């Protein structure tokens, strides 16, 4: 297996991230944030700021940098700061101070005096449940409230009432921050009316387009560069305040501007995963076959509603066979930091509710939770005709159960001071592709380049590009260079929706034959090495009868610097023939301290059906990271928003995520069935699915260990006091 191409750079510190760039003359911007959650800014006194050492400029809503609200088909609107005096959450960017050094800017920013006209802030999801609003239509364009009822069934309530066994429970999940290692930041440089922006993002072309719109310049005049990204997870899809303010201030001042959020600012001035409340009602017959499934969801959202966590549509809509299904999705607008997608949006918190409820059903039925899931596995989303293209969830469960020792779970397990429990859950995440263009270039030195604008935020996409390029050109991967993270490259490979591998793979499958055709044309064309002859391409060489040459030799002979072709792909006809998803089975073992009730995950295994596994190491790393995030969601992570709207734990000392000492063994296995109905390379997404189901598997294991059912994550010590 080839090593990840970015591994030596990252482990040695040689990888240069956006913020590592410091052009000559760089000055530093510091964002000022609001200290109330709702109201209007009536005045900002910045006299002391302007007088502070090194300060070059102070921008406020009263003296703003003009920015227009960008709109993109994929992301919708992106908020731009300082354009009005409204404050709708604590920690909202309300000013920007630029100085000669970062310390000067930060120091001066603390001298800003803001006067507010305060208004009452709504910050409690619970308090808002009663007057929640309907959410906008789902990703599939389905209405927030949706029912599929069997013939002759009048209502979901009837179907539930007629069920032999029923579960009715309400679950809660916490607000989360993406907490990427690299804080949101940007370095902006203008030259001759052209902007170059160095900034971690999930798609450089998307970022360039948003910046161009915001700054009202031609798209071609903005170049976004992000060769390395220190984690994104959905939090770097929309361009951020550092990019907007940095770019606008750099234009205003005629100096390069570097701007980075502090860790504490990242918790409010970017965006979060909404908090959710979910009620699950499940009915089954005595054999454990579902007869009715109702999933009602409430999600927090911003004061002017924006992103809503689609927990019902992301899970119960598709996961199990049931003759009767009813789902609703509501939202509660609050004065809280912006909401946005975060790893497995919908599926991650949704699966905590659904998969906990399935466990409760298994208990009510006295049935093995694995068996219950196998029995209700869907062949298509309920009420839809399109069957899953390739589904091997059963194999994930049976293989996983065997490998994990699931059969042992009936023994009463107490290990010294610890109560031991096992839990399981289903994981699913839709297999998607986005439109994608990849340029393939053959060069005279017998190397090739595969280039697209998208990002590798630690996913391994850089390596995957090389591998796909090598495969399609039939040359060793060492001879294929991957280029990405540059908006001037063909648009594609956006890191989002677990789409990048399938999208770039499909585009390369189109582009490679095209570049080979172009090569052949050079070889056989006027002045070509094999002018006028019949040739064929194989293994990096052009073969004519009795003769052959490498593609580099062909290019050199023709005096060509390169041949190039762009392959494009997009979701197409396949969408009318099948439904597509990745699948997985999560297993975990937890230990709960008998006397002091700490919960620790002691062992976990995930078995996944994600089509073809392109690069084993990158795939395992993705899955492991996501599974660990699931542990975090279950046992550690939650942004606590006080009544005032201020986050109580917006820093890494108190916003807990697991440390190495919390994560013992994480075992990952794949069942490998290439899904060529979905795309020519057979790979489906495997990033986001890894987090799905883990929190439920842990809560289910805690129940198994203690008999205590915890329906709110993160689980805290108090929950387990007897």
């Amino acid at each position, binding site marked *: 297996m080839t090593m990840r191409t970015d591994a030596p750079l990252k482990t040695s510190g040689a990888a240069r991230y956006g913020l590592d760039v410091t052009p000559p003359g760089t000055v530093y911007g510091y964002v000022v944030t609001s200290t109330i959650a709702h109201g209007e800014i009536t005045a900002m006194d910045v006299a002391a700021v302007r007088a502070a050492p090194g300060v070059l400029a102070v921008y406020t809503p009263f003296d703003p940098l003009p920015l227009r609200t960008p709109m993109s088909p994929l992301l919708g609107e992106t908020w731009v700061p300082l354009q009005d005096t409204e404050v709708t959450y604590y920690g909202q960017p309300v000013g920007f101070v630029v100085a000669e050094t970062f310390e000067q800017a930060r120091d001066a920013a603390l001298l800003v005096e803001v006067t507010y006209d305060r208004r009452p802030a709504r910050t409690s999801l619970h308090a808002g449940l009663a007057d929640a609003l309907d959410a906008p239509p789902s990703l599939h364009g389905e209405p927030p409230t949706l029912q599929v009822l069997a013939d002759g069934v009048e209502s979901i309530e009837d179907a539930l009432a007629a069920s032999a066994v029923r579960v009715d429970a309400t679950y809660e999940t916490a607000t989360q921050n993406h907490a990427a290692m690299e804080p949101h930041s940007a370095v902006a440089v203008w030259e001759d009316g052209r902007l170059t922006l160095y900034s971690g993002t999930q798609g450089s072309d998307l970022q360039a387009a948003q910046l161009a719109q915001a700054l009202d310049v031609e798209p071609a005049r903005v170049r976004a560069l992000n060769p390395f990204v220190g984690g994104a997870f959905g939090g770097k899809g929309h361009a951020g305040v550092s990019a907007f303010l940095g770019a606008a201030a750099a234009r205003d001042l005629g100096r390069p501007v570097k701007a980075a959020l502090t860790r504490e600012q990242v918790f409010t001035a970017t965006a979060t995963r909404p908090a959710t409340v979910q009620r699950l009602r499940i009915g089954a017959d005595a054999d454990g076959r579902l007869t009715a499934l109702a999933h009602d969801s409430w999600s927090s959202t911003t004061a002017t509603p924006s992103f809503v966590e689609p927990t019902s549509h992301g899970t119960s809509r598709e996961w199990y066979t049931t003759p009767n299904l009813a789902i609703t999705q509501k939202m509660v607008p609050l004065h809280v930091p912006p909401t946005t997608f975060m790893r497995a949006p919908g599926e991650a918190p949704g699966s905590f509710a659904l998969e906990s409820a399935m466990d409760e059903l298994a208990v009510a039925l006295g049935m093995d939770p694995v068996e219950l899931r196998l029995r209700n596995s869907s062949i298509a989303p309920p009420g839809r005709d399109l069957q899953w293209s390739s589904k091997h969830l059963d194999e994930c469960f049976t293989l996983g159960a065997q490998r994990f020792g699931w059969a042992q779970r009936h023994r009463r397990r107490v290990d010294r001071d610890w109560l031991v429990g096992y839990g399981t859950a289903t994981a699913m995440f839709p297999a998607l592709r986005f439109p994608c263009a990849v340029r393939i270039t053959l060069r005279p030195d017998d190397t090739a380049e595969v280039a697209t604008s998208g990002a590798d935020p630690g996913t391994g996409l850089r390596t995957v590009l090389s591998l796909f390029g090598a495969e399609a050109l039939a040359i060793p991967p060492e001879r294929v260079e991957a280029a990405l993270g540059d908006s001037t490259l063909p648009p594609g490979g956006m890191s989002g929706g677990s789409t990048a591998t399938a999208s770039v793979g499909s585009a390369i499958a189109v582009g490679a034959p095209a570049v080979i055709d172009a090569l052949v044309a050079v070889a056989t064309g006027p002045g070509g090495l094999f002018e006028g002859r019949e040739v064929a391409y194989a293994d990096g060489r052009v073969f004519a009868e009795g003769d052959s040459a490498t593609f580099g030799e062909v290019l050199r002979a023709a005096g060509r610097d390169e041949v190039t072709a762009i392959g494009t792909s997009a979701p197409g006809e396949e969408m009318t023939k099948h439904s597509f998803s990745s699948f997985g089975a999560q297993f975990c073992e937890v230990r709960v301290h008998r006397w*002091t009730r700490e919960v620790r995950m002691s062992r976990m295994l995930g078995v996944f059906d994600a089509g073809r596994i392109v690069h084993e190491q990158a795939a395992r790393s993705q899955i492991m990271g996501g599974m660990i995030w699931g542990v975090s969601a279950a046992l550690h992570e939650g942004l606590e928003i006080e009544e005032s709207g201020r986050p109580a734990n917006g820093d890494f*000392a108190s916003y807990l995520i697991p440390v190495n000492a919390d994560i013992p063994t994480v075992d990952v296995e794949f069942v490998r069935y290439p899904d060529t109905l979905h795309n020519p390379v057979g790979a489906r997404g495997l990033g986001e699915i890894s987090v799905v189901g883990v929190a439920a598997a842990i809560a289910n294991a805690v129940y198994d260990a203690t008999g205590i059912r915890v329906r709110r994550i993160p689980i805290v010590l108090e929950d387990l006091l007897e």
Partner: protein
Amino acid sequence: MDFLAPTSWAEALECKAAHPDAVAIAGGTDVMVELNFDHRRPPALLDLNRVPELADWALDDGRVRLGAGVPYVRVISELGHLLPGLAMAARTVGSPQIRNRGTVGGNLGAASPAGDSHPALLAAFASVEIGSVRGTREVPVAEFFTGVKRSVLEPDELISAVLVTPPSGPQQFSKIGTRNAMVIAVSAFGFALHPDTRTVGTGIGSAAPTPRPAPEAAAFLAGELEAAGLWSSRGALPATLATEFGRRVRDAAAPIDDVRGSAAYRSHALSVMARRTATWAWDAYRDENRSAA
């Protein structure tokens, strides 16, 4: 901000006397956080890292003199045999990076109710050696803390060392956190047996405005052990006695609710930790006898 960098203890004391509002910095693992968060902007920092007198420990006439600037990593590797309770506590501090820099002197200086060294020092009946140009004084750790993050240190004073006679019996430390490392204690408890004086040492962490001992509980346990002749017989610690001791330790605390845990949980945890550490220490005490015999 001025940066004062004395190279001897005498010079350090003179600096502190001349700049009473200078903030001492040892490992900096608390000070730098406060500066970064702008929780304080001292006019001067007084760097103690170049003061050789603070950088070592010695066993002097049966008493350990632990220089205020000795980092946790050395407490762990060098003092495990003499002060096992303190070494156990040191192992739970932060991460390797924090243990490389952080010091017991700094832990005392910060005087946080959650400082992990404090319960162990309390249980060992340690004292703090404090110096100034006016002279040197010794304050028992139990009297050192005066409030949340406050201590008896006068503006011109610095901590020179911690003085501890290694307890003559086994010691234990127990800490509950919301994860396995890099964690501020939800609550903690230090315990030491002092068979030579037939006393018991206790230290409560993260469950009151200051670290504090549980003197009534300690006296109760020591007295019951005495009454039952257990100090000399080394018989088993009755479970009821251990439980009652735990209850009394719990009653000595004054916990609050915060993001890390509820007061109710802290109370519960303290009673469990006190019962268990006492039992472990007592079992070790009994084993000592067996191995000696």
